């Protein structure tokens, strides 16, 4: 069992590295992405700073200026997500296939023992394809998802590929819906 557990951690490290490598190849190293990212980060930081300095009693002109900048930032953010989207599709298809393959390899195998009993709505994931009703048995998919959650984010951070906080805050998450623009 422990062998499986370690193997799954390796698999998720490998897929995270592969995924980020693929995205780097398709997106991060492109000039367009770098330019957009630099712009978005610069704008969002400036906006944040301006928001701090502009008091509530600020005159209309200043507020309008601020709004205009926000709009510009949103457009840039949308462009940025569009650039990313292309590789997102490519890599998600690859990983779906890989996941399917691993899923069939580990089908019906208990890969780890959970030290807690998962709440009912997680059991579908943690006990997937397992027989018996000992809910502390852990399926491949649950451990893989957990590993990916932690490892992928760390890999991104380690290589400085994660979007800056100011940028994600300004866009309300990296994949803010373009619909936000039309609502204003």
């Amino acid at each position: 069992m422990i062998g499986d557990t370690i193997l799954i951690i390796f698999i998720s490290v490998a897929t995270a590295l592969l995924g980020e490598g693929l995205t780097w190849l398709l997106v991060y190293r492109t000039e367009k992405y770098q330019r957009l990212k630099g712009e978005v980060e610069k704008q969002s930081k400036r906006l944040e700073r301006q928001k701090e300095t502009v008091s509530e009693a600020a005159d209309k002109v200043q507020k309008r200026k601020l709004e205009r900048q926000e709009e510009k930032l949103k457009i840039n953010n949308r462009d940025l997500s569009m650039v990313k989207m292309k590789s997102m599709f490519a890599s998600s298809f690859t990983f779906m296939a890989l996941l399917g393959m691993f899923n069939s390899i580990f089908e019906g195998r208990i890969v780890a023992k959970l030290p807690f009993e998962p709440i009912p709505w997680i059991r579908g994931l943690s006990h997937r394809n397992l027989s018996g009703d000992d809910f502390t048995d852990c399926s491949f998919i649950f451990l893989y998802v957990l590993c990916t959650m932690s490892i992928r984010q760390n890999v991104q951070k380690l290589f400085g590929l994660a979007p800056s906080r100011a940028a994600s805050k300004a866009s309300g998450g990296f994949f803010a819906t373009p619909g936000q623009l039309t609502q204003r």
Partner: protein
Amino acid sequence: MSSSSATSGMNSSTSPRSPTRLTATSSEHVSMAFIKRCLTPKATWTHKEEFLDAVYWLRQVVSIIIGIIVGILSVKGFLGIITFGIISSLIVFIYATNFQNVDPEEYGGIVEIIKEGFMTAFATFLVSWIVLYSAFHAPESSLPTI
């Protein structure tokens, strides 16, 4: 805004840090200088991101350690999760307010600092807890028969 200024901002994470606040760096790359600064009491942080990154990495390390300890001690159930929540938040709180002595208001309140990287750290904690628990305490009978 010209594109050349944007790209120079991108590269500034590798160049020596200037004291200006407005540098369009992305997330901090983990370098020796960064680690050193994280471990220096009351270090000077040129911008918000750096300190939050320090908190993020501290939290990751803490969650792995808590996960290993809790796994070896065979703690079960909700107690493990609560232990992680309380200890990691407390360590981050002490790190921010006492060790680095930053003004929480600059970062949008102490809650924002404590929330930094919580979900990733929680996943990291769960993985290390589950792995260690499975390695040391899983009953042999539960080994799959393939």
